[in-house]
């Protein structure tokens, strides 16, 4: 069960492009470069993360999931907004240890930095697990070093006990400790993902940011890794920000869900309520469109239209060009993220409180789905 708030994001925002770095600005001033358009990757995202919960993040490609995850993990500084760790969790250098080879990620990790954690024998509070376990593991290192290096540097385990510490981590993540002298490329995708997880856990984080951590795996291996995540939560009280484009995975693992569209949260709430009675038309279309084992020979009635470009977001409600329920107001006026009660939020002019939604449903039965195929 979930506990106190351990991470609070308020108005987290990240833009790319525009002014650019020093060199780009210099070139622009000399007339040698044009200003790059601004990509509003993440706009004013706020949420609380409670100890021991799995907060799922879903949305289409480019909606800002990874950018949000990287900010939360401390790998990318926000353009605006703040991240607080009210539970007194030591803020640290974020996920460098589990990132690409340990260095690249931390270079720009100027997020919530607390210089002296680097030298204390302290846990790193946040770790990130990536989609491609191969890319994130240095192929020239043996498993025992991949897992053991960070805890040694951060003095989480005593020098003489590193060996047993690594073996313990491997066992917990379902990797035979007999393989500790092998290189990452000698393992299958599922095993590499386990190594990545063992490596992240070795610095005793409190929060794991998982970015498409099971998306590249075959379903039988995916099941093994999802089970492992659930076990680790029970065992260590871990908290997860779990990013996936796969609704079935999110529905399975998350306690609460954030649905993102073009950089913004359009709906959030407890998983069961959100999936059984989505308040936002986008969430509703996503859920109705997702292939499921029990949907046989279905007539697919997908969301029409392409994903809009974040360089040129639509006016008003960003979903309006694809929304089956859009009204004139949606074109001009962006909807605010409103409280729907029962821990739910939705950004849609037409979304009512959950009870009112029921009422509209019975009246306007034919209004949905409003976009038949073809």
């Amino acid at each position, binding site marked *: 069960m979930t506990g106190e708030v351990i991470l609070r994001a308020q108005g987290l925002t990240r833009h790319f492009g525009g002014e650019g770095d020093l060199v780009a600005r210099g070139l622009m001033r000399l007339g040698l470069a044009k200003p790059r358009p601004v990509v509003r990757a993440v706009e004013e995202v706020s949420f609380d993360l409670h100890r021991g919960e799995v907060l799922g993040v879903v949305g289409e490609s480019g909606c800002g999931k990874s950018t949000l995850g990287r900010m939360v993990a401390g790998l990318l500084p926000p353009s605006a907004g703040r991240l607080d760790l009210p539970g007194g969790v030591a803020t640290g250098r974020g996920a460098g240890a589990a990132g690409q080879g340990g260095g690249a990620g931390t270079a720009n990790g100027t997020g919530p930095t607390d210089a002296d954690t680097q030298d204390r024998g302290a846990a790193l509070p946040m770790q990130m697990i990536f989609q491609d376990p191969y890319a994130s593991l240095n192929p020239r290192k043996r498993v025992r070093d991949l897992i053991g290096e960070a805890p040694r540097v951060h003095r989480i385990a005593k020098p003489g006990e590193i060996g047993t510490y690594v073996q313990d981590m491997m066992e917990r993540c379902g990797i035979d400790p007999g393989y500790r002298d092998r290189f990452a490329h000698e393992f299958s995708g599922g095993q590499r993902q386990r190594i990545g997880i063992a490596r992240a856990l070795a610095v005793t984080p409190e929060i794991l940011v998982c970015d498409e951590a099971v998306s590249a795996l075959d379903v039988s291996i995916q099941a093994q890794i999802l089970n492992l995540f*659930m076990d680790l939560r029970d065992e260590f009280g871990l908290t997860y920000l779990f990013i996936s484009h796969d609704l079935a995975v999110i529905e399975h693992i998350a306690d609460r869900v954030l649905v993102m569209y073009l950089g913004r949260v359009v709906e959030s709430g407890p998983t069961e309520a959100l999936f059984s009675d989505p308040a936002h038309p986008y969430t509703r279309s*996503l859920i109705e469109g997702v292939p499921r084992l029990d949907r046989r*020979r279905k007539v697919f009635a997908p969301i029409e239209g392409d994903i809009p470009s974040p360089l040129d977001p639509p006016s008003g409600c960003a979903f309006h060009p694809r929304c089956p329920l859009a009204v004139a107001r949606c074109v001009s006026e962006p909807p605010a993220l409103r409280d729907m009660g029962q821990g739910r939020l939705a950004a849609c002019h037409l979304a009512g409180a959950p009870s009112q939604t029921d009422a509209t449903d019975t009246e306007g039965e034919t209004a949905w789905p409003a976009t038949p195929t073809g």
Partner: protein
Amino acid sequence: MAPVLDLKALNTGFFTAAGEIPALRDVSFSLGRGEILGLVGESGSGKSLTGFSITRLIAAPGRVTGGEVLLHGQDLLRLGPEAMRRVRGAKVAMIFQDPMMTLNPVLRIGTQIRDALLAHERLGRAEVRARAIAALDQVGIPSPEARLKAYPHQLSGGMRQRVAIAIALLHAPDLVIADEPTTALDVTIQGQILALVQRLCRERGTALIWISHDLSVVAGLADRIAVMYAGRIVEIGAVDDLLDDPAHPYTQGLIASVPTPGRRQARLAQIPGRMPALTDLPPGCAFAPRCPRAQAACEAMPAMTPAGEGRMARCLYPLTGGAA
């Protein structure tokens, strides 16, 4: 009615210094007009190779070493290169996960459609243009006339896949083989492509082999499902029969490992271990090292045996519809 495709005991191997790698063994199924077969299995099980073997697009050191690929009764494996070229594209078409396997990055969309049309038909300029516009229109590309001038990189991933589908369907083929064409796409765009392919195949009676590692996608699309494991089909049957009452322990394991609504946060069933490498197959049933029902007899290769109405399974101790 005679089947469109009748695949009989197809064998494909890769010939290396260390000997032949048995990539496909005894792959058999048939497909009627307008029928959709979902071909599923985990990575490396031989799904794509089955498609490439049918269209004879396997590159050295790979080679089809046995069996028959009967298209309307004619064995494609016996056709000469020129005759095979005429079949490919006109009677059998493929759609790939990466639409750039179909599209040329440096040619305009209109040029590519024209070339594809003229490869199999004699048409005048005006006809070519009209056919190209109609082809783009029917796959839901907005303002198709303007798009004829576009290069592939000017289109989104979903749009590129639509163009690839339009090209595949230009000559109204009898059989389309779609190799994971939605795997790289977003859920919403995947839904659009599924709807499109489903509608076009149903309207024209095109037989479709839809290759996917995702059982849920196939459940929504296919009439029948074939499950592959380590180069062989291990079960084939009607969608409902196979998903509701699987006969092969591997099929059952696959189904149980899919997250299902209503069982939130319950432990997922997991198949222990992983698929063996083709160079390291056990002597008998390839699933035996992972199979909860395995017995000594499984050390001999089980044959495909009937497991109920319209269903076959390669298992000595099937979960349903056995000898009884």
